[in-house]
């Protein structure tokens, strides 16, 4: 029996897609239970499958959908034992545990407090003080939007961050703001699109798609609402150095 036959490589992708059945499905399941190599590959395939819906045009659910879910949820009682441990929680609570933890750790501290700070005054030393935690702080200044400013707080893992801006004008529905990482000798990549509220403020969770030190400039531009693959507008906010 060859290595290829020992490892069901040919069927792993189909299994991740839910497109196997019968003996082939059973064989994959029993194999990955003991083969770390195939289990690792399957995990990556599952990650890809989980991201497939991002390739679809987003469609908003009907406005009344949440009301119906909430009403039905209120009628039902969550099952399962009490909150002795994560493992013992009902499924939605187990899901919510990391959500709550993440929110408590990041949103509660960064979002709420920083948002309050931004409400009171433009980002300044007080806001910077909030960023005195492991990670990076990028201060964006309003090169193309006088009076506007922004703070990009990059988490210690280098991949996640929060962006707070103030002083940008609210945009019509067909326009959006977009964050960019400009790299020398490499394509400019986006960290996400965001809109500001009626007072010109924004708080957004963003992705840092490349190591921050690979970027020469971090910038924000105004783009069509669908977003752009590369910047088409002039830099409204810009940073060329960070710590």
């Amino acid at each position, binding site marked *: 029996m060859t290595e290829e036959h020992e490892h069901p490589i040919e069927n792993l*992708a*189909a299994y*991740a*897609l*839910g*497109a*196997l059945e019968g003996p082939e499905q059973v064989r994959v399941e029993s194999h990955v239970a003991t083969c770390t190599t195939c289990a690792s590959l399957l*995990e*990556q*395939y*599952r*990650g*890809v*499958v*989980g*991201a*497939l*819906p*991002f*390739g*679809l*045009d987003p*469609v*908003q*659910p009907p406005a009344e*959908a*949440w009301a*119906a*879910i*909430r009403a*039905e*949820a209120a009628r*039902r*009682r*969550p099952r399962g034992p009490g909150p002795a441990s994560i493992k013992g929680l*009902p*499924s*939605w*609570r187990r*899901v*919510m545990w*990391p*959500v709550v933890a*993440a*929110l*408590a750790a990041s949103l509660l501290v960064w979002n709420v407090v920083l948002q309050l700070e931004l409400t009171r005054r433009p980002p300044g030393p007080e806001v910077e003080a909030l960023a005195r935690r492991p990670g990076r702080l990028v201060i964006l200044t309003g090169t193309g939007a006088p009076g506007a400013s922004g703070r990009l707080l990059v988490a210690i893992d*280098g*991949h*996640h961050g929060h962006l707070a801006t103030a002083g940008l004008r609210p945009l019509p529905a067909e326009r*959006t703001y977009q964050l960019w990482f400009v790299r020398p000798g490499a394509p400019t990549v986006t960290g*996400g*699109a*965001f*809109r500001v509220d009626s007072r010109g403020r924004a708080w*957004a*969770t963003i992705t840092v*798609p490349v190591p921050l030190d690979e970027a020469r400039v971090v910038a924000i531009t105004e783009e069509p*609402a669908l*977003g752009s*693959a590369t910047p088409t507008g002039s830099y409204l906010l810009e940073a060329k150095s960070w710590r």
Partner: protein
Amino acid sequence: MQLGEEAGLELLYARYGGLIFTLALRIVGDPELAREVLQDTFLRCWDGSESFDSARGRVPWWLMGIARNRAIDLLRSRPHQARLREREQLAVGIGEPAQPDATASFPMRHAMVSALQGLPAAQRQAIEMAYYGGFTQTEIARELGTPLGTIKSRTREAMDRLRTLLWPLIEPQRGGVGRP
């Protein structure tokens, strides 16, 4: 921080409801059925009908897995014409412009759309028939009149290509709760 039970469910809905509805609508092709899938997905989550295993992936993957399975079940329970619609829809292709997004999901969507557009049409078809149509490899081969081995190869090659392109975006957030 204290989150009430309903607030917790609402948070999940706010973050993933749109994506789940989009997925369900793509599969069942009917807004009312998609709404049914959406509601069923969150209520299964709520009442513990589905078990979340953090070792098997992130929360959105889990939620979308529930939604996808429920939608496929609905699709299979309908007349054969419903599944034929999937083949017709595939002829139209993918990669329509995305809608505005104010979240960090934009890079992933952009990357996924680009990656899918970069696949040969036959490979993309194999992926979409499996995931959105609920076809098994054997059924895809039969529907297309193509040898099973060819379908398997197309599927694997397509998934390997997507994995190569997208895993660097997916992997850093593995095990987290945010968006891919």
